[in-house]
């Protein structure tokens, strides 16, 4: 991996490298676009701080590196004509962090978002519409007004006649999924009270329409979480719990995640989609799985002695096991850190 990174770095710092780099991105996006492209991709950008730690950087520099990575990915999404991108910028639980860090995250986010829409040189600004998704009552009022201004500006910028439909960037800010579901249930009740809705009409579609997201947002096709944690951390739990949403956990920190990793995931997704679309998709795989390598069978036979305990049991009259007499198990610790 080290050698690979070195090669990539040297290449990207040379002029030829940069030329090729630009060209290859255009080429690859054009190739990928001819196949299956998801409509809605979500990202959990995890690992900025650990990245900073491994590189001996400050925490704020880690967040900075992460935001660069994000810009690149957003550009790639636009190039691929992905119309909806959702990012987990700040969770309600993140208020548990130190005040300085929280402020810093707000600052970086504001900076990057205003860069996205205000910088005249940066022409993607015309193609991106930013939406703030989350519990606005928890956002400090100053920050909220700034964000709402950005939202408004990006809407004006991107919704002109000449432009193609923009990429909708849903920024989940002060968001958790449970909060969203509770909010939606509250809204649904309000609709019932206002007699806009009868009780019989309530279904899962109604509930998801009342989410912080725009009701027209398509379902999440792909969720990517970096940093190797295999949990959702209260993000889009309602949206991704069904089979048509794919979840990818990557074993790398967010600042290390680049377009090429993204292309690989999209290739995989496209391939799986293709396999699904072919009428009898399983046939090839079943054929292989039924013909297990002979070697393993022989080896398994060889290792049959592993079952010697069974043999002992039959011959030993007194083999009853009392659960209480076994060694006590390790401490039980729930995911919230509660011990019992």
């Amino acid at each position, binding site marked *: 991996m080290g050698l690979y990174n070195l090669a990539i770095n040297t290449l990207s710092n040379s002029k030829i490298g940069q030329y090729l780099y630009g060209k290859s991105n255009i080429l690859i996006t054009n190739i990928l676009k001819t196949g299956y492209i998801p409509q809605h991709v979500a990202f959990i950008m995890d690992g900025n701080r650990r990245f900073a730690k491994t590189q001996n950087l400050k925490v704020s520099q880690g967040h900075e590196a992460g935001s660069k990575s994000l810009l690149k990915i957003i550009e790639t999404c636009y190039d691929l004509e992905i119309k909806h991108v959702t990012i987990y910028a700040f969770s309600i639980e993140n208020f548990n962090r130190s005040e300085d860090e929280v402020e810093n995250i707000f600052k970086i986010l504001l900076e990057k978002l205003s860069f996205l829409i205000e910088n005249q040189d940066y022409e993607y600004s015309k193609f991106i519409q930013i939406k703030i998704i989350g519990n606005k009552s928890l956002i400090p009022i100053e920050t909220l007004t700034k964000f709402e201004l950005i939202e408004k500006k990006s809407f004006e910028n991107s919704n002109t006649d000449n432009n193609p439909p923009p990429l909708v960037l849903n920024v989940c800010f002060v968001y958790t999924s449970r909060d969203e579901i509770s909010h939606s*249930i509250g809204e649904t009740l309000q609709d019932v009270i206002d007699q806009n809705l009868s009780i019989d009409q309530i279904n899962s579609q109604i509930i998801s329409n009342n989410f912080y997201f725009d009701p027209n947002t398509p379902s999440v096709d792909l969720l990517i979480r970096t940093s190797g944690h295999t949990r959702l951390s209260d993000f889009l739990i309602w949206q991704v719990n069904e089979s048509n949403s794919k979840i990818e956990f990557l074993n790398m920190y967010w600042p290390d995640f680049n377009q090429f990793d993204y292309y690989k995931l999209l290739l995989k997704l496209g391939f799986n989609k*293709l396999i699904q679309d072919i009428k009898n998709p399983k046939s090839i795989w079943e054929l292989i799985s039924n013909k297990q390598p002979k070697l393993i069978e022989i080896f398994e036979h060889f290792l049959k002695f592993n079952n010697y305990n069974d043999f002992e049991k039959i011959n030993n009259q007194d083999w009853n096991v009392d659960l209480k007499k076994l060694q006590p198990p390790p401490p039980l*610790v729930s995911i919230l850190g509660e011990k019992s």
Partner: protein
Amino acid sequence: MGISKEDVLKRIDQKHRTVKQRGDEEKTTFDKILFFIFHLVLLTLYSVYSAVRLIQFLTNKVRIKFLNLAYNPSKTPQIIRDDVVKLNKIPKRISAILTLKSEEEEGGGFYGLLNDASELTTWTVAAGIPTLSIYEYDGILKNNLDDLRISIFKKLTDYFGSSSIPTFSIRVPRLNKTFYGVNSDQDDTYKTQDLHVEITLLSFEDGKPTIVELTKTMAELASKKEISPRDITIKLIDTELVQLIGNEPDLIILFSPTLDLQGYPPWHIRLSEFYWEPDNTDVTYAIFLRSLQKYSTCKINVGK
């Protein structure tokens, strides 16, 4: 990966051109040919990927095979406990997603599922974990409760012997009923003692449909003015759903080849760790143990 501003601008310039082309409705023959070429390249890439995938699939299968050979509980609780004692922590509540496999497969069909569920229960008991929930999309297990109870009882006898069979209860949230042991529903001493394992059987209807039902019930209360939309908090919904379905599991083990949640109750997957072994289709002890091993190393940090 440094990339200069000029380069960005150049790329954007090119993008403008493509945007304009996209704007023009009529596609030139050149565009069509270009699309064809690009698509051909994509298909080539797919075939390369399929070769890579095939190798990956085979290595995964071989690895799983070896794991299954290396970790074999041999129907002996001591072995399981010895494996678990090495870990520094284990989850309080685990959940497993099981799938009904076709009859033709080895260990498939209804009886395969029954066997999987009862093996899993036994491992959980032996590991010392007090709560297990089993999710099966269609709810076949809870519709065949008598079979399941007998099967678990038999399996526990297999592992622990007939004189000290661990106690268990099975809760079916949809029916709002709890069943004790193989036939101890009337046995008060059985019910009041500390049970070794509490099993919850979940299916698709315990997921989003339950949240919808809850909303309907609350809507009825709201229309009678007994509850206001402002009273709806995370805490309230959580209390209700914990009562209806149960607590959120710490660890969800998926005995499926990919991470596929199959409509698992969404409220309950907030922080749960997922564990699955790529390309694995069987419910085996190796997967169970490895999931516990992984949980023991995972860091617990809510929001931090």
